[in-house]
């Protein structure tokens, strides 16, 4: 096997090894900061592997599985370097244990890339030790031995020793001083698509989510929070306590809690409870929208400015558009829930959770139990999308369990979920472009919206030092003069991370490009290719490649669909390190878009498990179409006007298009799968092609149809 030589550095890669009764363990708990380009402190993955005396490997998965397939893809990385049959691997889900695994957060599809190098090192380190063990048994050189599918072979004599027979020798060996990683061309497992490890349990009812946890003696509860901007003065139980034989109805820190003997009684009783509230701040969507619109006409604070061409601007044409984006909910299929067991000094919690460190800190602050005495069990998550970064639904059960000294499970009803989400912020965007010689001379994008970082984390630094609100404001094309401005507005409506939080800014950019193309009477796809011709931007070539690919997949012909009466729209995006181009084909029936086909060419680097990449792309596309078609909650007196899937719909199967995906691999390392983020823009562009009307108000439902 040809390998890359990577020197082992103790500073970043401390290995402990030791014989245990069941086999040979390598912990790689202190991997240090990863050297990939991630700049956030969260991406510090960890894990460990174990080979037992039957030669089977247990590989720990220490992140959260929310459907993105990483409980399969991450262990595959370890197994590849370990050179073991995938059938001989068992994946074990870790509970939250930062001293062993470090950061266990699961964010924005980034876990694969942030784990790539460290997991390889971990697998390879084990392989090295097994090779050394075999070499010393045979009294030959390590270089003459090779690992293959669960055994070590001495190349010259073809002698074999299976891992199961080597584990005890290996466990006593010193740590490898240098580690050779495999060459991609030698990969046997990566690049193939074995079944997901969680696939069977997700078809037989055995998959356990937090909502399924059962603790003896536990109380079942649900909660009712007051509308945003209001506080509870009093409440009327309307006799529910007797009617449903409840344990209790109380006011607690965040609202009213209903404590019952089963979830049904709690949920039914909650419906009948009347709150008397005092309005402290007016929260009305129509006023918010007006205020955002008014502010966008002012200058805004430039957070990003790059002026590279100050030449003559006489022959210039100026065009501009305003966009509105509503507060968008997550609507995870598994409603918010948690179960807690709190005693004087100790707290154990089960919850869907994407950010364990933060939750533990929040719990500790809330009830004054030391962090080390808080145990958070990571379960399967019924959809994350950023909603499970928050602790609100977790603190509910913690507080109630502390109060009653009993285990308590809290489940939110769907209307509570919609009314108290951490929404993608509402926003008014204005793009102004100066056009000169058919090119975009200047791109000026102004965003007026709440700030996630400021509002959510109460960061005290100046609002205008944080770039987050303007991420995605500049399009994917080399433009000489670029300005992103921001105006901060804050409301008592919680805002937070949302699958592609900058997707609204990108939507504005990618639809505005079509507007520019139309102004210039250009084919929108060719116009994109034309803009990308200048190679002064390093990503241009890859974006051109995915555009070209998708154009041929869809037989692009200036937006004419494949069938009569069908129209196509295109959009492309470079996001989370992935390059994605979409073409969406629609027709219009009774004033509504019917989405027939979505073509998608993606380049996300090396696809570790191509089928999982595909399913992520399919999911991303449908998410984005849902967002553009339907997503938006509005408020009257702080109360959400939507309450369930009938008035806050998501895409259904009978509206779901055929999806055609092609994966290009332009690099030999995996990158994040950012798929999906432009499908909605491509849909809006198809609508523009079909009707001549730009989609500038989201969601499309209630605004354009």
């Amino acid at each position, binding site marked *: 096997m040809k390998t890359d030589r990577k020197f082992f550095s103790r500073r970043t890669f401390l290995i402990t090894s030791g014989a245990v009764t069941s086999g040979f363990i390598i912990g790689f708990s202190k991997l240090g900061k990863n050297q990939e380009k991630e700049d956030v402190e969260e991406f510090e993955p960890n894990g460990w592997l174990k080979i037992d005396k039957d030669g089977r490997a247990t590989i720990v998965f220490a992140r959260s*599985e*929310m*459907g*993105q*397939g990483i409980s399969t893809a991450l262990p595959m990385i370890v197994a590849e370097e370990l050179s073991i049959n995938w059938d001989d691997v068992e994946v074990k889900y870790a509970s939250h244990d930062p001293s062993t695994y470090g950061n266990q957060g699961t964010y924005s599809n980034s876990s694969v890339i942030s784990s790539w190098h460290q997991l390889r090192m971990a697998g390879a380190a084990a392989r090295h030790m097994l090779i050394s063990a075999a070499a010393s048994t045979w009294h030959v050189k390590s270089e003459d031995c090779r690992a293959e599918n669960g055994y070590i072979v001495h190349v010259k004599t073809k002698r074999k020793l299976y891992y199961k027979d080597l584990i005890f020798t290996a466990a006593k060996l010193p740590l490898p001083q240098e580690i050779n990683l495999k060459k991609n061309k030698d990969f046997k497992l990566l690049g193939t698509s074995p*079944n*997901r490890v*969680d*696939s*069977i*349990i*997700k*078809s*037989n*009812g*055995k*998959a*356990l*989510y937090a*909502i*399924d946890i*059962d603790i003896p003696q536990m109380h*079942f509860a649900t909660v009712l929070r007051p509308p945003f901007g209001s506080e509870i003065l009093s409440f009327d139980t309307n006799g529910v306590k007797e009617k*449903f*034989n409840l344990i209790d109805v109380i006011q607690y820190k965040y609202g009213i809690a209903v404590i019952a003997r*089963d*979830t*049904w*009684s709690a*949920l*039914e009783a909650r419906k009948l409870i009347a709150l008397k509230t005092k309005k402290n701040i007016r929260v009305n969507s129509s006023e918010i929208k007006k205020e955002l619109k008014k502010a966008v006409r002012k200058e805004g604070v430039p957070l990003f400015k790059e002026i590279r061409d100050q030449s003559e601007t006489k022959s210039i044409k100026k065009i501009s558009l305003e966009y509105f984006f509503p507060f968008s909910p997550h*609507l*995870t*299929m*598994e*409603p918010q829930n948690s179960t807690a067991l709190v005693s004087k000094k100790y707290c154990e919690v089960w919850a869907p959770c994407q950010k364990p460190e933060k939750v533990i800190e929040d719990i500790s602050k809330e009830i004054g139990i030391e962090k080390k005495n808080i145990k958070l069990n990571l379960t399967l998550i*019924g*959809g*994350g999308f950023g909603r499970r970064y928050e602790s609100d639904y977790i603190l509910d059960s913690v507080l109630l369990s502390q109060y009653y000294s009993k285990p308590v499970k809290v489940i939110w*009803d*769907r209307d509570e979920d919609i009314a108290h989400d951490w929404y993608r912020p509402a926003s008014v965007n204005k793009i102004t472009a100066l056009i000169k010689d058919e090119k975009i001379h200047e791109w000026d994008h102004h965003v007026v919206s709440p700030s996630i970082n400021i509002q959510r984390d109460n960061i005290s630094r100046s609002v205008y030092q944080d770039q987050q609100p303007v991420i995605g404001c500049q399009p994917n094309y080399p433009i000489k003069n670029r300005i992103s401005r921001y105006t901060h507005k804050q409301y008592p409506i919680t805002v937070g991370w949302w699958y592609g939080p900058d997707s609204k800014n990108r939507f504005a950019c990618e639809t505005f490009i079509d507007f520019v193309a139309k102004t210039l009477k250009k084919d929108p796809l060719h116009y994109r290719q034309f803009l990308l011709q200048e190679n002064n931007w390093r990503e241009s070539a890859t974006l051109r490649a995915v555009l070209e690919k998708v154009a041929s997949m869809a037989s692009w012909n200036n937006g004419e669909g494949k069938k009569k009466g069908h129209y196509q729209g295109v959009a492309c995006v470079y996001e989370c390190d992935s390059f994605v181009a979409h073409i969406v084909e629609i027709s219009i029936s009774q004033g509504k878009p019917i989405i027939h086909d979505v073509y998608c060419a993606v380049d996300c680097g090396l696809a570790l498990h191509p*089928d999982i990449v595909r*399913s992520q792309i*399919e*999911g*991303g*596309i*449908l*998410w984005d179409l849902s967002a553009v078609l339907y997503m938006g909650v509005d408020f009257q007196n702080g109360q959400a006007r939507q309450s*369930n*899937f*009938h008035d806050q719909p*998501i*895409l*259904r*199967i*009978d509206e*779901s298009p*055929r*999806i055609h995906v092609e994966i290009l691999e332009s690099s030999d390392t995996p990158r994040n799968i950012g798929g999906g983020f432009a499908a909605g823009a491509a849909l809006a562009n198809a609508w523009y092609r079909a009707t001549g009307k730009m989609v500038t108000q989201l969601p499309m439902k209630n605004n354009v149809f």
Partner: protein
Amino acid sequence: MKILKKRININSKDYQVEAPEDISLLWLIRDHIGLTGTKFGCGKGLCGACTIHIEGRANRSCLYKLKDLKDEQITTIEGISEKDQHPVQVVWNKFQVAQCGYCQSGQIMTAIDLLKRFSKPTKDTIRKEMKGNLCRCGTYPRIEKAIEALLKEDRS
């Protein structure tokens, strides 16, 4: 609320229950019986996550009250096959349908019912019959493909 004491049959097993007469089968099955494969998504018949079979027919368990149950047989996702070998489960696995998996019990229970009622459903029928089952992860393309593949297998 009146408490009912009743013997009910789930997955060919008898259970003695004692619960409020209006309780929905969803929460009876989850909280009282302890079978958690049937999921709560909306509580209003809008998402399909709670789909079970009553006398072999798909029903939204969040809308079905205990007191309306006579002696019908109930099947939940846990009861469709002992060894995970129901053809729909097998094809679901083959097409690697599930993502987060939360909606999948409901999807599978609806699909089984659909395949009982239609011997040769068209694509449109499949889409129409499955449309009450929401999936936030976007597994629809695979659900469609899996059901179609099953139909092809059956014919050959």
